Structures are given as structure tokens and as C-alpha cells.
């Protein structure tokens, strides 16, 4: 296994992996904030809030993640905000992921009986207090398994950033293959892409197992 091409390829892809992890982390945090906030808003009884929440969730869940990403990438400069492709990707993916997480949160909140809210209100809690301190702690058990599943989807979606030119793990792999093809007859494309697959697998498989485990524990 001591081949000279591995060293430089590995070091370049390591910097790509760093970008992938960074994008995944940022996207996850922003999407979770959006998702939980919008999910909580869905419990509102105000008609126009309900309509807005439904519109946001249905539109962004119904459109490919790549379309929202490309849209943000091209739209931000047009409305006068110039950002790099990484920021645009994070915003685009988080808007899309946030809608998916919001739908999960909405379902989890709805699964808790309205009696719980009524009881909390009867004890003198405000509407927000009842939601945050009575309903949410009970809903989180139902929320977690699909939420963790969604995280693996978001981490995988970070690979889409390579489409707008971010040198993430996939982007760095493509660059190295092009370079190797230029200097030698063998680009080692199979080995390099298998390495990319392996990295994603190592990150996402444990999360899938955790999600399955929480799901099973919830059912029993």
C-alpha cells in the first residue's frame, strides 16, 4: 500500500473533509433552529401564522434541495448580498432542511394530547409556557428518532455544495482525480471515490443505528 500518490491526495482530501464537516455542522445548527422554531409556530392558533408555516414547510419540502441551494446561490448576489459559495450553500441547505425538521417537530407536537396543554393552562401557565414546559418535553421522545435520521440526510446533502464549486470532500476528490489523470495514466478514481463513500458511511451509519435504536425504544 506504499504508493506515492496517496500522501498528497489524502492531505488535500483532509482539507476537503474539514469543509464538509464545517458545512454539515453549520447547516445542522441553522436547520435545527429554523425547524424547532417553525415547528413550535405550527402549534399556533392564529390563522395567518398557520398558513405561513404550511406554505414554508410545503414549498421547501416539495422542492429538490439542489434547487433551493442554487436559488440562494444566485439570488443572494442579486438582492445585493455578496457571499461566498459556502455561506450560500449553508443558507440554501438549512432552509430546505429546516422545513423537513419543522414537519417532524410539528408531527411530534401534534402527537401529544391537547389535554396536556389544557391541564397546563388550567394550572395558570401561559400558552408559550405550556408549549415549552409541558408539551415539548413529552414530544422530544417522538421527535428525536426521525430528527437524527434527518441529520444523516443533511450531512449527505453537504456534498451538493461541490455543485456550486465548494472544495468539500467530493470537490477535493474530483480535483485530485483530475490532477492525477493529468500527470499519469491512472487517476485512481475508484479508490478515491471509495474513500469518499467510506468517510460518509463512517459518519452516517452510527447515526442511523442510533435513530433505529431510539425508534425501537420508543415503541417498546
Amino acid at each position, binding site marked *: 500500500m506504499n504508493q506515492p500518490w496517496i500522501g498528497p491526495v489524502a492531505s488535500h482530501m483532509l482539507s476537503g473533509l474539514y469543509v464538509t464537516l464545517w458545512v454539515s455542522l453549520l447547516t445542522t445548527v441553522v436547520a435545527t433552529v429554523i425547524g424547532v422554531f417553525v415547528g413550535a409556530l405550527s402549534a399556533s392558533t392564529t390563522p395567518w401564522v398557520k398558513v405561513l408555516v404550511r406554505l414554508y414547510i*410545503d*414549498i421547501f419540502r*416539495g*422542492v*429538490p*434541495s*439542489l*434547487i433551493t441551494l*442554487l*436559488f440562494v446561490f*444566485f*439570488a443572494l448576489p*442579486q438582492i445585493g448580498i455578496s457571499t461566498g459559495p459556502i455561506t450560500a450553500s449553508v443558507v440554501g441547505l438549512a432552509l430546505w432542511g429546516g422545513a423537513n425538521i419543522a414537519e417532524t417537530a410539528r408531527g411530534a407536537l401534534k402527537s401529544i394530547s391537547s389535554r396536556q396543554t389544557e391541564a397546563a393552562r388550567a394550572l395558570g401557565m401561559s400558552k408559550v409556557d405550556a408549549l415549552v414546559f409541558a408539551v415539548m418535553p413529552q414530544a422530544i421522545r417522538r421527535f428525536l428518532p426521525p430528527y437524527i435520521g434527518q441529520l*444523516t440526510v443533511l450531512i*449527505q*446533502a*453537504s*456534498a*451538493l455544495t*461541490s*455543485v456550486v464549486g465548494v472544495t468539500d470532500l*467530493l470537490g477535493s476528490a*474530483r480535483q485530485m*482525480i483530475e490532477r492525477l489523470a493529468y500527470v499519469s495514466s*491512472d*487517476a485512481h*478514481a*475508484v479508490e*478515491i*471515490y*471509495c474513500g*469518499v*463513500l467510506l468517510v*460518509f*458511511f463512517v459518519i*452516517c*451509519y452510527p447515526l*442511523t443505528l442510533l435513530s433505529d435504536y431510539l425508534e425501537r425504544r420508543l415503541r417498546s
Partner: protein
Amino acid sequence: MTPNFLNELLVLLDGLGRTLLISAIGIALGISLGMVMGAVRHARIPVLSQLIACYANVFRCTPLLVQVVMLYFALPDLGIKLTPFETSWLALGLWGAAYHTEIFRAGFGSVNPNEVFAARALGMSASRAFLDITVPLGSRASIPAATTMAITQFRSSSFMIAVGYQELTYVANRMVADTFKVFEIFGIAALAYLVVSNIIAIASRWLERTVAVPGLGVAK
């Protein structure tokens, strides 16, 4: 309605046609492979069942985009050359099959075992009982989840931009890069994805109602 705009609309429609084509083949391939593999998983055929479980885990825990890029750019090194069109439907089908396998396995597993006992008691062989009782009932139970996945496959056909297949997202992206009409063009593309997703969902609910077995699942 300038003739220019009409022209752009036609180009987008052309892209939508290609999107529908690769989605249809990919979904059909994914569902048929998924049914067969789900049946093997359900029957717990040794070795084969474990291999399929590995297949499903690998395809579900790695990004579709990396799989697509790998099929197109790495397979030629192993002597397999695919066109962008072939790559597109094959990648969608193989990736979708991993999810459909789990969906149909769960569907076959949800069939009341008493139905199978009754069939066996009437003298049906195990395989006959599986084909005549478990498959028809389990497939019906799988319709909602399989539809959700089929819609996900349809939306994910946008990833084929990575291999240059001229589907809707590719065409829209090109057009935006040329004309900077970000809102109009991505708006139309997003609308097209939303409309087709909803048509698939409505068709599926119609199918579910039409093939429903009267009385089944009502009395517990």
C-alpha cells in the same frame, strides 16, 4: 409573454420531460428491485439476506451525489462506460432500491401472520402462501411509504446535473447563469417539481383506495 420567454419555457419543458423520463425508469427499477430484495429480507434467506442488508446500508448511508459521480467517472476505469442518461436512471434506481427494500420488508412484515397460517392450513406451500397472501397484502401496506420514496427519487433526479444530463435543474441552472432571471426561472422549476410531486401523491392515494381490500384492517 415575449417570444423569448416562450422559448425559455419550452426549453424548461424539455428539461422536465427528461427529468420525468429518468425518474420513471429510476422509480420503476427501484420499486421492482426493492420488492425482490425486500422479499428476500422478509424470508431471511441466509447469506443473501445479509448481503442485501449490507447493500441497503451502504446506499442509504452515502450521498446519492457521490454514487452518481462514482458511476459516471470511476466505472470507466473498471471498463464500464455509461452515458449520462444511463448513469442517471441507474443511479436513481440503485439508490432508491436500498430504501424500497426496507419499505417492502416492513410491509411484508406487517401482514398478520394468521393470514399466512390460514393459507398454510388450506394446503398452500410456503412459497405459494408468500406469493398469494403476503405479497399482495404487504405491497398494499407499502404504498404510502413507497410513494414518499418515489417522490424523493423524483426530486433527487436533480442531482444528475453532476454528470451533465440535461434534466430540469441542469437546464434551469444554465439558463439562470446566462440570463440572471433567478426568481422567474427557479420559480418555474420549483413549481414544476411541486406540481409533479403532488400528482404522484394524488395518484398514489387513488391507487391505495382502488386496490384496498374491503374490510381488511377494519376489524381488529
